[in-house]
């Protein structure tokens, strides 16, 4: 796995933690430990997504840095998989 693939893989893991905590907090809104976890991993996720977008391509239009080219359109499609 190259650096790009590794970082994308790691973003997937941290994003999963955030998704899981979101659903948990929806039904346990006062759980202090879950709130701390959410704050921690959500910050980590945002940093990793920003790093990925700066180095490779924007994962969302929010992360497009608007240099001299609109990179969003040319970014790989998620369903392409490893064969491409």
């Amino acid at each position, binding site marked *: 796995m190259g650096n790009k693939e590794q970082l*994308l*893989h790691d*973003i*997937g893991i941290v*994003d*999963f933690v955030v*998704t*899981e905590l*979101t*659903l*948990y907090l*929806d*039904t*346990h*809104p006062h759980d202090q430990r879950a709130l701390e976890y959410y704050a921690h991993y959500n910050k980590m996720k945002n940093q990793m997504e920003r790093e990925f977008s700066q180095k490779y*391509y*924007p*994962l*969302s*239009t*929010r992360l497009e840095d608007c240099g001299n080219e609109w990179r*969003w359109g040319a*970014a*790989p*499609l*998620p*369903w392409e*998989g*490893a*064969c491409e």
Partner: protein
Amino acid sequence: MWSYDKRLQFPVNIKEPNAKLAQVIISQYGGPDGEMGASMRYLSQRYSMPYREVAGVLTDIGTEELAHLEMVAAIVHQLTRNLSMEEIEKSGFDKYYVDHTIGVWPQAAGGVPFNACEFQVKGDIITDLMEDMAAEQKARTTYDNILRLVKDPDVCEPIKFLRMREVVHFQRFGEALRITQDKLNSKNFYAFNPGFDCDECSGKK
């Protein structure tokens, strides 16, 4: 409104095409207990939910189902690319191919097109949450059935992930039902429909 992230919720990297398997897995795209019906069910039920936290659960799970829909599509797409005409004929994929080539179209494994009759929006919080819990179990059973047919680990792993999410969603809907019942009269949960009969609860006043 929504925003889109250009990545899958869980990676799908299938090396070996398998048109036979694709015809089975497509049921979780547009079949009776598939991800399209799941997402549309939860997102559509939100408008008659009298409690914000329960509508929040429906929004977040309904959104995650859209990510699952994309994963199932990625699996079907990767299982059907680079197929030879011989494989298309031999695998029985020819009947799908004639109408859709190798595009991904919402249908059940048996060829029945996606249909909104596969889910319900009853406008009653207890009825709808009970349906949601049943829906998660039906989807989990479908993934169990798919897993018995899959030998390729590249296909197995994302299907196992999707199966696991059904179990978590079932748990969250169970909690949403408990939150709902805590707000109702414990002697008779059905005394009135809080999304229709109670002006304060439904925001009519």
